[in-house]
């Protein structure tokens, strides 16, 4: 069994063989992957060593102390957090070997072609079609809210392959090459002025059957793995006190006494307490994961942070008074990642509005908590046994 001591030894070997100061960033990351120190809980040969997930911290601490480069996990978040665990669970050996290494190193960015104009919260209603022609599938349709599509090399894609069965049964999961003909990415300008998301049009895109993940028609089950990983990815973070969005507003409060009012003081203290408590809940969740007893808390973390981010950033705009009437920059840009701290309060306020929609709306998440955690009866569904093609649209 791989223990902390053994991992520390291997990490030091890696550092000795590839000194960070004199090694090219990508070369170092490739060597780290090949040494099994990328994600230690993954299998050997796929960037891991089959070690307990909790021991990753041992490796990360050693590498950070040595000044080793990281793989910029924020920029490749979709690949790391969603595509990788899905490929690991449902991919063929060949798929795992082809995709996981460049994904982790960050040489290839991933995006997620799930949501559609008519299928958001009701994701399984999706209408993008794929029809089999020999060893290929021909895809036609439109996806939306696609972060990183403009820089992505690959996408995880779900499409309808059988319209004659109920909606959850006729879906298939693919890996889609974003450089293929027939794929058009159009920026979708948002409330903040920038275009962090995209619309993606798929017209006659041909995907070889070897890029299917899981069985044809079993894509909904595969997608569940992706979605579950999307929602828990937020809870694992370790934050210091005032580490989240409360940090900038607390700093402004301390540095700008002329902006303070009694009303804002009460609201700030209340939110400060709630932010601290949410941080503690995240820490408790992390400790549970390390102890091998994952709790249901993860289902609620996204809800808590969505509300807090919105309220705190809203307060910050008000606190700034006359400055709150201004905005830093409406230029249409296409950022590679969401930069909450590099922009002004107004940006944070507007961008945070998406926190209760993206990755599952608050309303959908509350249903999930109510049904899966509290065991309350499920919403009545009128579309359960109806073929997708017969659903009213």
């Amino acid at each position, binding site marked *: 069994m791989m223990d902390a001591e053994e991992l520390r030894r291997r990490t030091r070997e890696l550092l000795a063989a590839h000194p960070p100061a004199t090694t090219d960033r990508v070369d170092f990351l490739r060597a780290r992957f090949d040494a099994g120190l990328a994600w230690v809980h993954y299998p050997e040969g796929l960037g891991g060593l089959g070690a307990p997930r909790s021991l990753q911290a041992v490796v990360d601490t050693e590498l950070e102390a040595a000044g080793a480069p990281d793989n910029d996990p924020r920029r490749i978040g979709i690949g790391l957090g969603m595509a990788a665990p899905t490929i690991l669970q449902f991919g063929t050996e060949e798929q795992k070997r082809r995709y996981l290494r460049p994904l982790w190193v960050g040489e290839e960015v991933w995006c997620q072609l799930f949501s559609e104009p008519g299928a958001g919260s009701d994701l399984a209603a999706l209408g993008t079609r794929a029809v089999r022609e020999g060893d290929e599938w021909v895809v036609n349709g439109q996806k939306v809210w696609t972060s990183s599509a403009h820089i992505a090399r690959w996408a995880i894609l779900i499409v309808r392959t059988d319209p004659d069965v109920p909606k959850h049964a006729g879906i298939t999961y693919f890996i889609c090459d974003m450089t293929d003909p027939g794929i058009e990415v159009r920026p979708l300008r948002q409330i903040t002025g920038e275009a962090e998301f995209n619309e993606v049009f798929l017209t006659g895109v041909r995907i070889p059957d070897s890029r299917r993940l899981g069985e044809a028609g079993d894509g909904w089950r595969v997608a569940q793995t992706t979605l579950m990983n999307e929602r828990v990815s937020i809870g694992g973070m370790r934050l210091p006190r005032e580490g989240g969005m409360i940090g900038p507003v607390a700093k402004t409060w*301390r540095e700008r006494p002329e902006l303070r009012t009694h009303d804002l003081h009460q609201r700030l203290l209340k939110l400060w307490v709630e932010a601290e408590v949410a941080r503690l809940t995240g820490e408790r969740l992390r400790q549970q994961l390390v102890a091998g007893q994952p709790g249901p808390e993860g289902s609620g973390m996204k809800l808590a942070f969505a509300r807090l981010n919105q309220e705190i950033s809203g307060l910050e705009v008000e606190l700034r008074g006359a400055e709150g009437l201004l905005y830093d920059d409406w230029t249409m840009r296409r950022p590679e990642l969401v930069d909450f701290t590099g922009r002004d309060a107004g940006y944070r306020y507007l961008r945070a509005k998406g926190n209760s929609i993206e990755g599952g709306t608050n309303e959908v998440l509350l249903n999930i908590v109510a049904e899966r955690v509290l065991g309350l009866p499920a919403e009545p569904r009128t579309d359960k046994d109806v073929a997708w093609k017969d659903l009213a649209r």
Partner: protein
Amino acid sequence: MTDLLYSEEEEALRAAVRDLLTDHCDAAGVIARAESETPHSVALWKALADGMGLAGLLVPEELGGQGATHREAAVVLEELGRAVAPVPYLTSAVVATEALLECRADDLLSRLASATAIGALAVALDVAAGTAYQVVRFENGALHGELTGIADAAVADVLLVPADDGGLYAVDASAATITPQVSLDLTRPVAKVVLDGAPGRLLGDAEPAVRRALRAGAGLLASEQLGLADWTLTETVRYLKERKQFNRPVGGFQALKHRLAQLWLEVVNLRAAARNAADALSRGEDTDVAVAVAQAYAAPVAVHAAEEALQLHGGIGMTWEHPIHLYLKRAKADSIAYGTAGAHREALAELVDLRAP
């Protein structure tokens, strides 16, 4: 490093206390006793304090206690909160004990730990650590004065009384006149204490002892509030799965599901805050902030949980027979006990340097 989980030993302690409460503290019994002359359950206290030795959790072993920490006491309080148990645990085994620990009053600590005496700090229940409290007059070796809002004084054997000379005095309860007040919380009643030349034994300085006692009281009260909120949520979810209207279980209606999911989220957060406060008290690190955060968060959540439970139970929630009212009364009283959420936020403003205008 902060440990926010429960150890195996703590879970075993929880199971033992819960078993005992199942046998000795059913809701119907608590309701019946609440209306009587003796709202406290002496039998339950004996079983907890004498039988299980829980009154001495915070007392060192050499004084006959368990030498445990606030983490274990917090687990006991979670269970007592779940049962709105009418016992002086928080007031005697935590608050009075902490005051005596500060004064190093070994003989009294031994008596409290062995459950041969119940102690009560003679400071009104609504006072927060670090704020002003009432004192009595010390004159010619005797104590004179009147104190109101003293929780669990009705069952106390010894009162710990702060006097105007800055001392904290131990007064035998039989030397005082203790008159029950009509309390909002029937399960933790408050009383008026009148001292008319009562003899007192000087224990030490009142200020540090009272401060320490009230801080521990506030910090561990969060665990009681957690237990209380957890019970109201669990019970409401159970009821809403059974109760049918419009030919569907009421718990299947989205408007209600969302309210319960929201409440669950608050309880999950409260657990982290309460554990953090108990852990900070046990380690003596970051204690003031941890306690203030826990109390600023706990009180509104516990009240919200009890109010939601009442509303979602419909008509039955308004009746005397159903125990929800006990939980609501305890939750509302708890929201004032050892300082309101607002008082703790005010303390935080200083502690974390977010000062008022």
